C-alpha cells in the first residue's frame, strides 16, 4: 500500500515538475526581422515605412500601421540585443514603445466614430502579451546596464533592465 502511495506521490511530483511555467504565452505572431541598422537597405526600409504611413490613412488603418510598426521595432530591438548591439537596440525598443502607445489613441478615435474596435482591442491584448513574453525573455540575456565609452566622444550609459521593464510596464493593459 505504501508503495502505491509512494508511486502516486512520485508520479504527481514528476508531472508537476515537468510543467514548464508559462508567462503571457500568446498565439500572436511577430514578424521576421527585417533589414537591421547598418545594412545598406535599412534606409530604404525607413523610407518605405514613411510612404506606407500615408497609405494607412484612417483611424483603423493607422492602428494597423502602428501595430505592425511596434511589432517590427520590437523584433529589431530583440535581434540587436541578442547581438549585443545595445546602443542600437534601445532606440528600436523606444520606437516600438512609442508606436504601441499610439495604438490606443487611434482606437479611441475610431470608437468615437462608431467603428467596431472589439477585434482590434483583442488583437492589441494578444500583442501586449506577446511583447511582454519577448521582453521578459530578454532580461536574462542583457546586462543590467551598459557603458559605452568611445574614444573621442561622450560616454553613454544605458540602464538596459530599466528600459526593458519600462517597456513591459507600457504594455500592461
Amino acid at each position, binding site marked *: 500500500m505504501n508503495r502505491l502511495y509512494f508511486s502516486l506521490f512520485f508520479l504527481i511530483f514528476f508531472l508537476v515538475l515537468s510543467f514548464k511555467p508559462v508567462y503571457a504565452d500568446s498565439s500572436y505572431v511577430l514578424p521576421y526581422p527585417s533589414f537591421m541598422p547598418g545594412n545598406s537597405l535599412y534606409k530604404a526600409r525607413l523610407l518605405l515605412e514613411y510612404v506606407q504611413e500615408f*497609405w*494607412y*490613412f*484612417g*483611424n*483603423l*488603418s493607422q492602428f*494597423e500601421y502602428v501595430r505592425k510598426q511596434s511589432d517590427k521595432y520590437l523584433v529589431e530591438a530583440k535581434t540587436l540585443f541578442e547581438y549585443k548591439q545595445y546602443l542600437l537596440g534601445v532606440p528600436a525598443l523606444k520606437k516600438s514603445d512609442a508606436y504601441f502607445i499610439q495604438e490606443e489613441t487611434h482606437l479611441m478615435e475610431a470608437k468615437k*466614430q*462608431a*467603428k*467596431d474596435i472589439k*477585434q482590434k482591442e483583442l488583437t492589441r491584448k494578444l500583442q501586449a502579451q506577446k511583447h511582454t513574453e519577448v521582453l521578459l525573455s530578454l532580461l536574462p540575456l542583457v546586462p543590467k546596464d551598459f557603458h559605452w565609452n568611445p574614444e573621442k566622444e561622450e560616454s553613454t550609459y544605458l540602464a538596459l533592465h530599466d528600459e526593458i521593464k519600462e517597456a513591459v510596464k507600457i504594455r500592461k493593459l
Partner: protein
Amino acid sequence: MKLKRLLKYGSFSRSMKMLFWGYGFSLSLFSLFSYFFIDPNFTALRWLYSGVYADYRLLVSFGYVLFIALLYLFYVLILENIKTQNVSFLSLGKKIAITASVLLFSYPAMLSYDLFNYTTTAKTLFFYKENPYLIMPIEFLNEPFLSYTHAANKLALYGPSWLMLSGIPYNLGFSNILLTLFQFKLFAALFYIGCSYFVWKLSDNKQSLLLFALNPLVLIETFVSGHNDIVMMFFVLATIFLILRKQFVIAFLLFIISVGIKYASIALLPFMVFLAWRVSKNQRIKWKTIWVFAAISMSIPFLLSPLREEVYPWYAIWFLPFAAMIRKQYVKYLAIAFTLGLLLRYIPFMYLGTHFGIAPIAKIILTVFPVSVAALCIFVRKRYV
C-alpha cells in the same frame, strides 16, 4: 460636312418606330419586374418587398426568360431593319437614349449586388475616411449597409481610378441610399452614352452602334446593375480615339485610368502600342484586323476569369464594343448569341436559389447553347445555302 451629316434629319419608318416603342415598353416592364427581386434586408425599399422572388422561383425564372426572349426579339429586328432606314446619327442616338433610360428606374440588385458593394466601398473611403484596401466595411458598427451588402467582409476589389471616380456619385447621393444608388446608375449611364458615341465615331456605322448600344446585356448590366465595366471601356475607347488624333500623352493617361478601374484593360496594352506605332508612322490601318485584335485581346481576361471566380455576364462589355465594329455578319450573330447565353446564366441561381449542385453545369450549358446553335446555323448557311 460631318456636322451636316450628323444633323441631317431623316425619319424612321413606321415599323421601325413600332420596334423601338416595343423595345422600350419591354424594358419598362423589365424595370417593374426587377422589383420582385428586392432584398428583404434592404430597408429603404422594404415597403415594396413582396417575397415573390423567394416564394415563386419557377414563375420568376420563367418571367425572366420571357423578358430576355422579348428583348432579344426586338433587338434583332431593329438590327435587321436599320439598314433600310435613312436617319441621322443624332435621331438614332436620341431613340437609343430614350429607350435605354427607362431601365434607370429599375431595382439595382436584381441580378447582382455589385452596386451595393460600390456604394459601401465609396462610403468606407469618403465617409469613414478609411482605406478600403485595408479596412473591410464590416468593421463599421451599426452601419445600415451591413444588412444588405453581400461583400461586407471583403476588401476593395477595384482599382484606384474607380475608387476616386465613385466619389462623384457617392457624394451626389447626399447620404441617401436610394439617391446614391440612382446616382451610380446615372453615372454608368453617362459612360454608356460616351461609349456609344465612341463606337459610332470609330466605326461610322449605324449597325455597329446599335449592335453595341441596344444589346440587352449591355443595357441590363449598365442600367440595371450599374456595373463599372462600361466606365473602364469608355476610357479604353477614348484612348483609341485620341491615339487616332495623335494625342498620345492624354491617350496614355486615359489608358492608365482605364486600367485603374478594373485592371482587365491591361490586356489591350500590346494593341494600344501597336495602334500608336501605326498612327505615329502614318501607316495605313486595316480596321477589321484592328478590331479583331482588340476583341481577341479583351477576350483573354474574359476567358481567364474562371481562374479567379467565374465568368460573369457583364464581362462581355469588355469585348463587345470591338466585336460590334468588326462588321462581319457571323461575328454579329455570334456576339448576339453569346450575350444571350451569358444573360441566361442567371437562371440556375434564380430557380434553384443556390450557386452549388447542378447550378454550375447548368450555367455552362445555358451559356454555350445559344452560341452553339448560332455557330451551327452560320455553318449550315455558309455550306449549303
